[in-house]
């Protein structure tokens, strides 16, 4: 586990300097919940790309004494916390017409294809629906980081609603500034211009609301409705920004180690940035800045994974074309190493969550975490039998440390189960044609 600066209430107040009013949600971090009290439930999803080697991915042996495959073997240290899921399909992708990347990427979390082939998904993604149902008093409804940069194109997987894409944040330093910069540094230092502006968000947004009101008074009825909706969202934003959250005892400022030459969109450094994004996400959860998060690895096409020291064989122009050709390859050591690497990152994430205390246990004890890929078997580019690994006990609701075969259940049905684990009474998710209610995990 990486070194991180533990924060006492004193640290926070000093760290916030003269701008405590800027970040009202931090004021509550001091009187953190004592150990032994219950902790809020949280959801985090981890999306890696290009499926996996499905023929060899699944654990073997009895469910409760599962033997992890080589690809899943990095999860051995956290095996008691995980539930690998076999036999869960995303058939909604095929509604887009062909089973390409647009289709799989845009339905993997939404199960809501759009009949216009090139359009965004027709409904919200599961993370956003969980956030809606939780309606948590946190400063952010959700946080979503793009490992490898924020550009996603075909893989606009997260949606707040139809035609309402949720963008990814792709720069760890910018995320750090947004979430933690106010908490560290020289307590005597003057707040920066940005910190001072943020301190005045209340007046700024009130000013915007005044202008909306002034304009509305002069608008036609159709335009007035647009402006009224805009004003509603500003009011929601004011409430959200005023939220304090309930920081747990594990809350602290993460240490982000990025080399001096690091560039956010340089996917040759995903190994470096991946850990930074994970550390940021874990602490955002521990500090209750949000209860819903996504880590999405964005480059599905051309990464060459230099840190693995294996390299894409020269016969292929890039990683993606090699994946297509997997059936013709006799030596699968390179793809195996790549798919295994994603599970190393997932294992690191789970270990961090398990090591961070929260309430009467760890963060992970009160979470539902899902690792998933948009494709099942990478070579086939199919959306059957997606490589899903759940983790966390969701406050004692999920029995972990076993392998579950859902035998052809669909992701929409799995996501209904998620919603119910978070106390919602939903019985359907996404396009109802692909959802017959919850499944038992």
């Amino acid at each position, binding site marked *: 586990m990486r070194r991180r600066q533990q924060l006492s209430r004193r640290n926070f107040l000093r760290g916030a300097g003269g701008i405590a009013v800027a970040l009202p949600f931090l004021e509550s971090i001091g009187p953190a919940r004592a150990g032994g009290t219950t902790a809020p439930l949280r959801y985090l999803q981890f999306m890696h790309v290009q499926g996996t080697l499905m023929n060899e991915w699944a654990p073997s042996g009895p469910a409760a004494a599962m033997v992890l495959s080589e690809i899943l073997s990095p999860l051995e240290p956290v095996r008691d916390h995980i539930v690998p899921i076999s036999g869960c399909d995303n058939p909604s992708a095929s*509604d887009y017409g*062909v089973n*390409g*990347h*647009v289709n799989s990427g845009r339905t993997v979390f939404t199960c809501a294809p759009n*009949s216009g*082939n*090139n359009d965004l998904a*027709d409904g919200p993604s599961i993370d956003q629906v969980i956030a809606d149902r939780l309606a948590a008093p946190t400063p952010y*409804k959700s946080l979503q980081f793009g490992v490898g940069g924020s550009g996603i*194109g*075909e893989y606009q997987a997260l949606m*707040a*609603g*139809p*035609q*309402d*894409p949720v*963008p990814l944040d792709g720069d760890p330093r910018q995320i750090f500034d947004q979430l933690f910069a106010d908490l560290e540094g020289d307590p005597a230092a003057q707040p*920066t*211009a*940005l910190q*001072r*502006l*943020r301190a*005045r968000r209340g*007046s*700024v*947004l009130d*000013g*915007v609301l*005044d*202008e*909306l009101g*002034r*304009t509305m008074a002069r*608008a*036609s*009825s*159709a*335009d007035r*409705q*647009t*402006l009224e*909706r*805009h004003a509603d*969202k*500003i009011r929601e*934003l004011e409430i*959200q920004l005023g939220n304090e959250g309930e920081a747990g005892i594990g809350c602290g400022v993460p240490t982000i180690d990025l080399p001096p030459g690091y560039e956010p969109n340089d996917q040759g450094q995903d190994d470096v940035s991946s850990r930074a994004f994970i550390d940021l996400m874990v602490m955002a959860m521990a500090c209750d800045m949000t209860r819903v998060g996504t880590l999405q690895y964005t480059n599905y*096409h*051309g990464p060459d994974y230099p840190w693995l020291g294996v390299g894409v064989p020269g016969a*292929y*122009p*890039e990683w*993606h*074309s090699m994946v*297509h*050709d997997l059936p013709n390859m006799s030596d699968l050591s390179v793809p195996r190493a790549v798919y295994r690497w994603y599970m190393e990152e997932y294992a690191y994430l789970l270990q961090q969550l398990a090591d961070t205390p929260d309430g009467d246990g760890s963060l992970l004890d009160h979470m539902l975490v899902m690792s998933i890929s948009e494709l099942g078997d990478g070579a086939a580019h199919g959306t059957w039998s997606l490589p899903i690994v759940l983790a966390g006990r969701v406050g004692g609701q999920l029995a972990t440390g076993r392998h579950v075969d859902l035998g052809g259940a669909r992701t929409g049905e799995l996501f209904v189960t998620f919603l119910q684990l978070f106390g919602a009474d939903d019985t359907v998710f996404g396009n109802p*044609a692909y959802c017959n209610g919850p499944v038992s995990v």
Partner: protein
Amino acid sequence: MVGAEGDSGGTDTSEDDSTGEPVEDPTEDCAGVGAGLAPMRRLTKAQYDNTVRDLFDGVVEPGSTFPISIIHEGYANNPAANIVSLSAAEDILLAAEHAGQQVIDDIGSIVSCDPGATCAEGFIDDFGRRAFRRPLLPAERQALLDLYVQVESEDGFADGIGTVVTVVLQAPQFLYLFEEGGAEVEADVIELTDFELATRLSYLLWDTTPDEELLQLAEAGLLHEPEQLREQAQRLLADSARSGPALDRFFREWMHFDGVPAYEKDAALFPGYDDALAGAMDQELSRFIDGVLGSGEPTIERLLTSSVTQVDATMAGFYGVTPPASGWGEVTLPAEQRPGLLSRPALLAEHSTGTSSAPIFRGRLVRTQLLCDSIPPPPDDAMANAPEYPEGATEREKTEILMDHMNCGACHGLMNPIGLGFERFDPVGAWRELDVDGSPVDARGEVLSGDPQLAGEFDGVPQLGERLAGSDVVTACFANQFYRHSLGLEPSQALACAVDPIEEAFIASGGDIPSLLLELVGSNAFRLRVVTEEE
């Protein structure tokens, strides 16, 4: 569904049938003078970025957080597609703070007067006028001054100014092209103010905020006569550094080309199609269009038939022609292979799947974007009931099966027979002589149409291009598309009595594209606005 959520009034009916067919009798709305509808539009991301740069003379970078624009029913400025959500509100706030922070940190480059109340008042009047594209109303001015005074008393002059900027960049008067209008010229029709016309003109032809000359003309009341508008349009168009990218965005949105391929190409089938080639194709598309517009004959006919384009080394290799000595150079390609817009590789690759040449997509593009016809959406069970095709079937064989399958032919007859004319272009836009089964490519197609200029069989894109180029339907459709783009309208919102005169003038001009732009900006459809009933 966006429209349903957005409640955009009684005109947004195309949402329900998705056909794009005008569904209302428009004649009763435009009251005879040719005014059109004009719903309020939010700045697109490109417009926001350009505007922030221009408002601060390049001193302030817009950053990356302003929400991306969703293209819906054709054009990125469609209001129904860019309703502010919670995350958009947050992103707009972050973008405004990013700008405000730069203003505070670099205040000396932003204001030239000595810090103080007078300087602040001057800044608010000047910046407010440029950001809201009209002089501030007294209440607006007072609100910004009050904010400045409050912040200045706590954190000083720079913070006061920076906070004012942070509010203004989120204010509806800045974010929306909001047109209250002026005098009523007849029942339910108002004319736009000179400032509103300056704004329309500038965002249409430059994708940015009006410059000082436009604002001063508006202030002097010298921007509402057709000749005044046309003269300014000519000035704006002559500044190709700004008008070029703005017009390029129209052509891309019209051709449903957003630079993000809908389908990733199968690398085993098309090993040569890599990011470098795709990027070169993308550039070539813009250079081809620029070449037509900059030629002595900037017409719709030339757009659809010209074999003159530009290549760099990559595109020269792709076309099999001699590369230029350096950079990009003009070449004339074989007219029987690469005539006009419809044979541009970027578009052909965009309107294909990863493995197939997709006559459906290519035919649909011609049908909806060049003929302005509508195609009903496929029934919900279309994919579940799709026919089985034999292994290795050609697209022509698949089309034959599809046309006879259930009711598929009713709609696919509008698309596939046109799309088959593109069969000499493979899924990455490369020329091919042989089909997937090794037989010589058969690129005969047919346009089903009630219009005698259009209807009938053809062989390949050269004949299709000639046919379309000679059609008044296509010429009128282009004018209709540009009009819709200018105001973010869905097909059903292009009222016939507003757009008909523009279409007729474009036909009469011989399809001269610059004339179309000038005709439009001087038209009643541009200068007036219908007040809808519920107002």
